[in-house]
């Protein structure tokens, strides 16, 4: 329970259905920890894990009439999500902390705690569907009714045991219906705005966050400055650090040329940032590692799927093939713009999530 509308409605719905419930909030990050440091904002209201949100979750649990506890997972969140997030940017990649959090906290530690305190399943307010397919003898993760809220992209890492103990009660509802349910149950948070950005990075300013976090840790900000080069290998300038760039970026390159330039590639090894024309961003191939398969146990032969390469991406048709024990290669039917290392590639067969991996 985050104190937001979605998880609150889940609690109210399941309670109305007569389930025996325990409300849990994961305390993941102390929002006051870096407040005001290195130019970080002072105010932390209305952010996940803020005291206001815990207060809201507690009020909803009281209103719904269920026991409620806050579970401290700050240490694990920092180790499994925050540090990798910083490291990924420093190695020229563009990370997705939400997927790491789902894999390592929400559907791992939370499931452990749930079992320990006697709960059979964990229900969350994610927009996704989970059900058991007798024919395949597998738990399937499927896209939700409300495609605009689809969160399956962040859930591709869920294993069969994790899915078997997970409920997504909002999978068949639209956000509008969920808000309406919140009002019908007269939940105190019914009109609370949705949260959007990465929960521990105020205002989405990840550079400032990295500054503040590394300073707090007593770690020098690594020097990742280097050359700006063209796709042809010509050096056209310098940059102050590879963490300032993401593939497909156009603004803030610090060079003026006649035609618009885009970041095509970032090299963590020699700190080179390759820039080029928009068409250079187009690519038909990607390699994914750290694979998790859901609807199938193994990818034995090439398979036709649709692939999402970032959260706001319409799945594009492709063929995937296992090329090494933990490596899948995908060839798209049509070139895709800005395939970005650090993001994940999630494979869909219609509504069903086949699996996914992290883009190299």
């Amino acid at each position: 329970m985050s104190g937001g509308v979605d998880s609150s409605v889940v609690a109210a719905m399941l309670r109305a259905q007569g389930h025996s419930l325990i409300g849990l909030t994961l305390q993941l990050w102390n929002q006051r920890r870096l407040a005001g440091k290195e130019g970080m904002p002072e105010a932390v209201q209305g952010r996940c894990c803020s005291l206001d949100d815990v207060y809201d979750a507690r009020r909803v649990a009281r209103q719904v009439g269920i026991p409620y506890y806050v579970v401290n997972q700050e240490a694990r969140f920092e180790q499994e999500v925050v540090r990798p997030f910083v490291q990924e940017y420093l190695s020229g990649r563009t990370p997705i902390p939400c997927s790491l959090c789902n894999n390592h906290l929400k559907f791992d530690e939370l499931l452990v705690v749930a079992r320990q305190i006697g709960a059979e399943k964990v229900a969350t307010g994610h927009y996704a569907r989970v059900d058991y397919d007798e024919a395949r003898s597998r738990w399937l993760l499927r896209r939700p009714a409300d495609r605009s809220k689809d969160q399956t992209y962040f859930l591709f890492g869920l294993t069969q045991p994790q899915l078997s103990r997970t409920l997504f009660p909002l999978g068949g509802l639209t956000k509008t219906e969920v808000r309406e349910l919140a009002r019908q149950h007269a939940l105190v948070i019914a009109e609370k705005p949705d949260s959007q950005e990465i929960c521990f990075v105020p205002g989405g300013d990840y550079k400032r966050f990295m500054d503040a976090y590394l300073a707090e840790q007593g770690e020098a900000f690594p020097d990742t400055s280097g050359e700006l080069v063209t796709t042809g290998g010509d050096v056209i300038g310098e940059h102050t650090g590879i963490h300032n760039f993401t593939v497909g970026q156009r603004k803030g390159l610090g060079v003026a040329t006649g035609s618009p330039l885009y970041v095509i590639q970032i090299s963590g090894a020699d700190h080179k940032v390759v820039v080029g024309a928009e068409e250079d961003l187009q690519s038909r191939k990607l390699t994914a590692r750290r694979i998790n398969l859901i609807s199938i146990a193994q990818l034995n032969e090439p398979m036709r799927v649709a692939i999402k390469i970032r959260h706001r991406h319409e799945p594009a048709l492709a063929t995937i093939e296992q090329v090494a024990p933990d490596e899948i290669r995908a060839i798209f039917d049509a070139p895709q713009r800005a395939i970005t290392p650090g993001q994940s590639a999630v494979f869909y067969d219609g509504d069903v999530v086949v699996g996914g991996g992290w883009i190299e």
Partner: protein
Amino acid sequence: MRRIYLDNNASTPVLPEVLAAMQPYFADSFGNASSIHQNGQEARFAVENARESVAILLGCGVSEIVFTSGGTEADNLAIAGTISPGDHVITTAIEHHAVLHACRHVASLGCEVTEIPAGGDGLVDPDDIRRALRSNTRLISAMFANNETGVLQAVAEIGKIAREAGVAFHTDAVQVAGNVPVDISYINCDLLSISGHKMHAPQGVGALYVRKGTRLRAMMHGGAHERSRRAGTENVPGIVGLGKAAELARMGLTRGDDLAMRALRDRLEQGILDGVEDCRVNGAAETRTPNTSNIQFDAIEGESFVISLDLKGIAVSSGAACSSGATEPSHVLLAMGLTPAQARSSIRFSLGKQNTGDDVDRTLATVIETVARLRQMSPNYSTVAVRS
């Protein structure tokens, strides 16, 4: 089923006699104790009666008791009220945050603070305090008994060191008052804090003993209440409650209530040690308050343990609650050298006057069953199961 409350070091229920004593002071004898009329005089009389009961419990003079809003205010007053920038304060790493954070606050205002670590037994060595003395040391603040482990500290010895060095000595006796006989003349302290709700009086009232002749600057400014040591209209019902609780505690200690409490605690503790493998008492080697038992259970996550017991109707605690309500590992156990994992696997059971042998037996059975269940799926075990 009736809930069993074994978290009395966090707060205790108000005893029926205490509640009855307080009752008239809300709506009937509601006067301001500073007023000259008879309504005020009634309140004043009640406050002074309570002061006498507290003074008798602690073995001090009536004028040496300053009522406060609780233990935290008493601790803050003792520290901020006796030292100035440039002064040196010695405290211990196992203090309650009311002392530790008050010391860190004065450190930020220009005082020097030394935190003396504790040994693995939970005891602070008085010689460490002696060695930390400097020419500008003005105050030693060392607790009487620790709230997490119950370990009784060598306060008489520390008091002697302070007296010899001419340094003021404050002790936080919040976990001791009412639980163990306290004799201020024996421990040589200049300042001593107590809290109402740790001894079956209500929350929101406490007291600071201030030895006659000790210079104390007020923190709250206003009227001349409490001999100008603590401004603010007296919390008359709360003070009356504290007075009644002190009176009951003194009578109880005369009867040997502390010994009965110890027997009950030992029955719980021994029952757990006998019935559960791989567990041990933190601070076992030392003399402890008779109501506290802090037990470390190998391969158990304290947070899940506390929630599991709570869902079965038993209230205990593990570590400290941070502002969100999540649990943080106890700084006391960490200061005793436990690893964060060991600290998180430690549970504090603390008894109160309301607990019975039946409470202990039911708790024992539930603890044994819960530990077995949790160990069956300890994090390592279930991580393997989930990821296989």
